[in-house]
């Protein structure tokens, strides 16, 4: 903590710390100083000169955003001289910005300035600006009371508006070159997809040679739009709409759980998503999914009424008819022939009710959260070693890591905001090791990129463990406490000789050793893992090995260390916490454990089935075989089970009775006998649990006016149960459901909806009358949520598992301020591991090579933001820009020789039913048997932006490794 100093702003005594700038100190004290280029979270910049002040005893009018505080300093923010300078600054700014909305002589007569068509020049008219009436520049100009007539003349820049890139428009005619967007892209995101161009009077924001964002490296996170004070950067959807209110809730697209403020317009539509600046999860950041993927809530095709199958056709019905029919259909199939699947977007409350319904009413343990990520194996593997089936540390801890090991995941696309602290850490010197055969975005920042044969992660991690133990790099304190388990582990690692590992993975032994050394010696080290492409039977051991890697090197229970299991669904963690698992009751109490069952039976008042349910793949097989006859699907299950879409549909086809609760008539719902229209995340109350174990409240943003009859899934579940005569489903709100769940689930015992909502800490800010950046305006309070385990109502939650003292509790949370100052927080680094991890021996398992004679190679498809070394052409036609370029197929020289292919040869790649033309490039770094192609993220963005699907972001194509065949391209047919 920097030393405290006292300064006087306009005579008011302000206590602050010596690392602050005057503007920050004033803002913290609730004193407003107008500003345009400053934005909380970014480094002081001093470009706009709007925040000038006078300091007693010092000459001139310095910009307060770059003026460090000094003890005893006396600052005046509103003297005549200061106001004069500010007006001149405004004049200068407006000499380069349309100003009809400020200087038109009818400005006071028109009222809301959205009708003006003729009093000023065309380019100047209020309605020509998408930010009309929500413009920070305009508010600020009015605040400083600019003269109505500027002595400077304004000339329209006459630049082409960029409207052909996905998701957002750029109109640099409106740009005031405050540089917020450039700094956001650079400082906050580490992308530099936009930059300043030219200089002096010509200076503007743009891309290299004015190219499209598709090849400039844009990840379409929207951070630049969120900070833009004028209409230069705006979302294309609902571009001209004005909000009437906004509401914070949790983004439903991935397990990061970003807090987002959704704007609602007067027609009750959700029109914009603006990430919350002070949310401890995302600190003002979002991603392409969160920022641009909410429109499905307004979609016309949303289900409005319940549907029931009559004479083989789904027809509209009343709620009562549908509920009665569902209750009757389900009642005949209690026991293991019933199965329930839950969408990972469902809330904790819905997950809790669904498993309670399945277990107490339907007497079946067949209850799952549907996901194409190997979440159960991943989390169970971590649980085997670390004791908790969850990630260990908060997301922004990653910024303090000395080393990050990112293994078999695609974090930038799937859990985007987790990649942000990683990229920022790398800039400050954190070592990044990427282990992936695919070229994913993080490889660009990697100090070491290992490309193992896909799926051989277990061998590789085992090899790293072996190298660490052999070289004595393990954590001494940990070794002493775990001598017993360690011996068994050490013995099992005898199988993992580095030469053998090298042969299995295709990664040279010295690279494995180097990775092990970096990981073990750059503490604290953190692990990001998703187990993409790891064969099913190796997933759990692999997760264990990773947990052991963290434990053995002492990287548990400390800030900057730990392990982040990157599941895919927004609330997969919470659904599993709540017992949506065939083996576990809420709180990971095994269903086979009698004491655990007794406990739940005490609350639920029903005997529970003892036999665990089937794993998901076996369950679907059983449904195809006719052993599972009845299913209940809650939420958009099919969308999140895309990896195995066909088995799911095949399983649903033959069922005796299927009930679906969904917001859309999804392919799964088309097989249903009863369909209930469901609310989307934006209409629900409830809670989500994110990848950090943070339980956060969802708040109702709006009620879609075109589907007035829809109900939240928890309500529908209760109604079905009540129609079946089951007791224990008389809830009147999601909060009540959570109340009961907290009694059953010891991890959530201290968590209540009321606590989550009411524990928000208001942020100090100047009065609501002053102009503020939208993000600042919307972040009125900080919602910390609660991180489980939270055993009692007075417990503050557990930030870091297996830690003691400050590191475990609500210690130093990352805030924007100290991130912006580049200051690494001091955590309780030396905390000893408390939860006694348990080491499990590893078994060597060889990953099967592709034996398909037709498709002998594995194609590792990669996707990156930019590839400047490659020739790329952006086709600017009608509609969106497109990327066109020659695709390169990377191939091991020996594989190429075996197939008689040479560098530069044109080939056809045949994989997953597609044929792609490509040119061979020899890549000795690849393991044998693997070919790799890398595409630009821009291509995916265009595909998503142009998609006709209601909710394209729920089905973003993933980077799977697939069997492939490569053949020389014949002469053109």
């Amino acid at each position, binding site marked *: 903590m920097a030393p405290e100093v006292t300064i006087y702003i306009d005579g008011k005594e302000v206590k602050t710390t010596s690392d602050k700038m005057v503007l920050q100190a004033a803002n913290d004290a609730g004193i407003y100083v107008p500003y345009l280029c400053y934005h909380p979270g970014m480094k002081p910049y001093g470009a706009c000169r709007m925040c000038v002040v006078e300091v007693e005893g010092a000459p001139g009018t310095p910009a307060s955003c770059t003026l460090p505080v000094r003890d005893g300093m006396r600052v005046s923010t509103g003297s005549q001289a200061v106001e004069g300078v500010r007006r001149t600054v405004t004049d200068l700014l407006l000499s380069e910005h349309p100003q009809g909305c400020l200087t038109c002589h009818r400005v006071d007569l028109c009222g809301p300035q959205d009708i003006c068509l003729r009093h000023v020049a065309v380019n100047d008219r209020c309605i020509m600006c998408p930010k009309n009436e929500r413009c920070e520049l305009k508010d600020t100009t009015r605040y400083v009371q600019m003269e109505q007539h500027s002595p400077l003349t304004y000339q329209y820049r006459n630049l082409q508006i960029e409207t052909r890139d996905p998701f957002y428009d750029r109109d640099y005619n409106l740009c005031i070159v405050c540089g917020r967007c450039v700094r956001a892209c650079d400082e906050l995101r580490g992308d530099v997809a936009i930059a300043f161009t030219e200089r002096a009077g010509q200076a503007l924001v743009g*891309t290299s040679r004015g*190219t499209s964002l598709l090849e400039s490296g844009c990840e379409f996170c929207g951070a630049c739009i969120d900070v833009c004070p004028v209409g230069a950067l705006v979302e294309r959807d609902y571009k001209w709409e004005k909000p009437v209110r906004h509401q914070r809730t949790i983004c439903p697209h991935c397990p990061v759980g970003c807090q987002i403020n959704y704007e609602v317009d007067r027609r009750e539509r959700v029109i914009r998503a603006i990430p919350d600046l002070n949310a401890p999860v995302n600190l003002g950041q979002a991603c392409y999914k969160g920022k641009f993927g909410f429109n499905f809530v307004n979609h016309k095709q949303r289900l409005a009424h319940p549907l029931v199958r009559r004479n083989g056709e789904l027809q509209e019905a009343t709620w009562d008819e549908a509920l009665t029919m569902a209750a009757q259909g389900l009642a005949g199939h209690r026991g293991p022939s019933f199965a329930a699947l839950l969408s990972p977007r469902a809330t904790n409350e819905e997950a809790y009710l669904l498993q309670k319904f399945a277990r107490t009413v339907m007497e079946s343990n067949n209850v799952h959260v549907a996901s194409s990520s190997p979440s159960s194996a991943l989390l169970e593997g971590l649980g085997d070693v670390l004791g908790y089936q969850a990630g260990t540390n908060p997301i922004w801890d990653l910024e303090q890591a000395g080393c990050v090991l990112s293994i078999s995941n695609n974090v930038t696309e799937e859990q985007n905001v987790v990649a942000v602290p990683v990229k920022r850490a790398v800039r400050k010197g954190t070592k990044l090791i990427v282990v992936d055969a695919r070229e994913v975005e993080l490889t660009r920042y990697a100090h070491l990129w290992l490309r193992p044969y896909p799926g051989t992660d277990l061998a590789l991690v085992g090899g790293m463990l072996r190298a660490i133990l052999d070289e004595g790099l393990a954590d001494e304190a940990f070794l002493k406490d775990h001598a017993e388990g360690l011996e068994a582990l050490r013995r099992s690692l005898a199988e993992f000789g580095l030469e053998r590992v090298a042969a299995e993975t295709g990664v040279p032994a010295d690279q494995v050793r180097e990775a092990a050394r970096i990981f073990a010696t750059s503490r604290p080290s953190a692990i990001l893992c998703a187990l993409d492409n790891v064969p099913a039977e190796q997933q759990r051991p692999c997760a264990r090995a990773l947990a052991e890697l963290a434990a053995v090197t002492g990287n548990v229970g400390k800030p900057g260390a730990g392990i982040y299991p990157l599941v895919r669904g927004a609330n997969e963690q919470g659904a599993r916490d709540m017992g949506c698992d065939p083996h576990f009751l809420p709180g990971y109490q095994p269903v086979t454990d009698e004491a655990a069952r007794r406990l739940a039976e005490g609350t639920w008042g029903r005997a529970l089935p003892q036999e665990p349910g089937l794993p998901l793949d076996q369950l679907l097989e059983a449904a195809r075989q006719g052993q599972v006859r009845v299913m209940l699907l809650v939420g958009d299950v099919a969308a999140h089970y895309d990896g195995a879409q066909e088995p799911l549909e095949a399983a649903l086809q033959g069922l005796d009775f299927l009930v679906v609760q969904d917001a859309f008539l999804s392919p799964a719902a088309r097989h249903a006998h009863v369909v209930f229209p469901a609310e989307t995340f934006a209409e629900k109350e409830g809670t989500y649990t994110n990848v950090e174990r943070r339980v956060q409240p969802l708040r109702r943003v709006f009620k879609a006016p075109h589907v007035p009859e829809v109900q939240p899934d928890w309500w529908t579940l209760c109604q079905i149960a009540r129609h079946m005569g089951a007791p224990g489903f008389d809830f009147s709100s999601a909060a009540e459901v959570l109340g009961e769940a907290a009694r059953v689930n010891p991890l959530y015992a201290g968590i209540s909806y009321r606590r989550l909502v009411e524990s928000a800490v208001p942020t100090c800010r100047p009065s609501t009358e002053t102009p503020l950046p939208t993000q600042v305006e919307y972040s009125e309070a900080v919602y910390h949520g609660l991180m489980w385990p939270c055993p009692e109502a007075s417990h503050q939650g557990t930030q870091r598992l297996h830690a003691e003292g400050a590191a475990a509790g609500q210690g130093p949370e990352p805030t924007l301020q100290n991130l912006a100052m580049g200051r690494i927080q001091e955590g309780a680094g030396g905390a000893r591991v408390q939860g006694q991890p348990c080491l499990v021996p590893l078994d060597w398992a060889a990953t099967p090579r592709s034996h398909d004679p037709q498709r002998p190679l594995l194609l590792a498809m990669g996707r990156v933001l930019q590839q400047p*070394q490659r020739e790329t052409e952006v086709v600017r036609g009608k509609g969106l820009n497109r990327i066109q370029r020659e695709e390169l197929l990377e191939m091991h020289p020996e594989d190429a020789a075996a197939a008689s292919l040479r560098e530069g040869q044109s080939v056809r790649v045949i994989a997953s039913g597609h044929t792609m033309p490509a040119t061979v490039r020899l890549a000795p770094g690849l393991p044998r048997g693997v070919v790799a192609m890398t595409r630009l993220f821009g291509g995916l963005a265009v595909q998503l932006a142009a998609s006709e699907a209601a909710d394209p972001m729920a089905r973003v194509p993933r980077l799977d490794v697939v069997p492939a065949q490569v053949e020389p391209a014949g002469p053109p047919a």
Partner: protein
Amino acid sequence: MTTGEALRKRVRQTLRDQPYPTVTVLSSLLAVQDDMGYLTEEAIQEVARFTGTTINEVWSVASFYLNFRFTPPGDHTVEVCWGPACHLRGAQTLLHDILGQLGLSGEGETGDSHISLKLNTCLGACTQAPVISVDHGLMGRMDSERALKAIQGASHPRRRERRHSREVR
């Protein structure tokens, strides 16, 4: 191999051959411009890859400095000084005549890419005003006739050897 690929090879080689202890975006851009005379799109991309930045960052630097050019220069460079001293000694007339002779309306290349005309605010020889320079060779006390002759004399068939801009002067 495409011409783009050949160009990239040449750029990569130039980037690798930089003799300075500190290699930056700026030094890389200068090296490429010294080699090729201007910066192509491929050059921007290769510099980005070489320095581990993005094309936008490189463009930001490249477009900031007026010294960098993005179109091929003419075979010969003619600079006309229009600083105060030269202005007083008739640089305007000189410039007018040169522009007329070259068929230009301002800075730029002649249609046959033979000559690049640049304006300069001071060539550092005010006592000799008005001054022009042809291929970095200074010529003082100019009048239109001598200037046009000098420019015509520069129409040497051999392409000028490119040197580092800092060595010129």
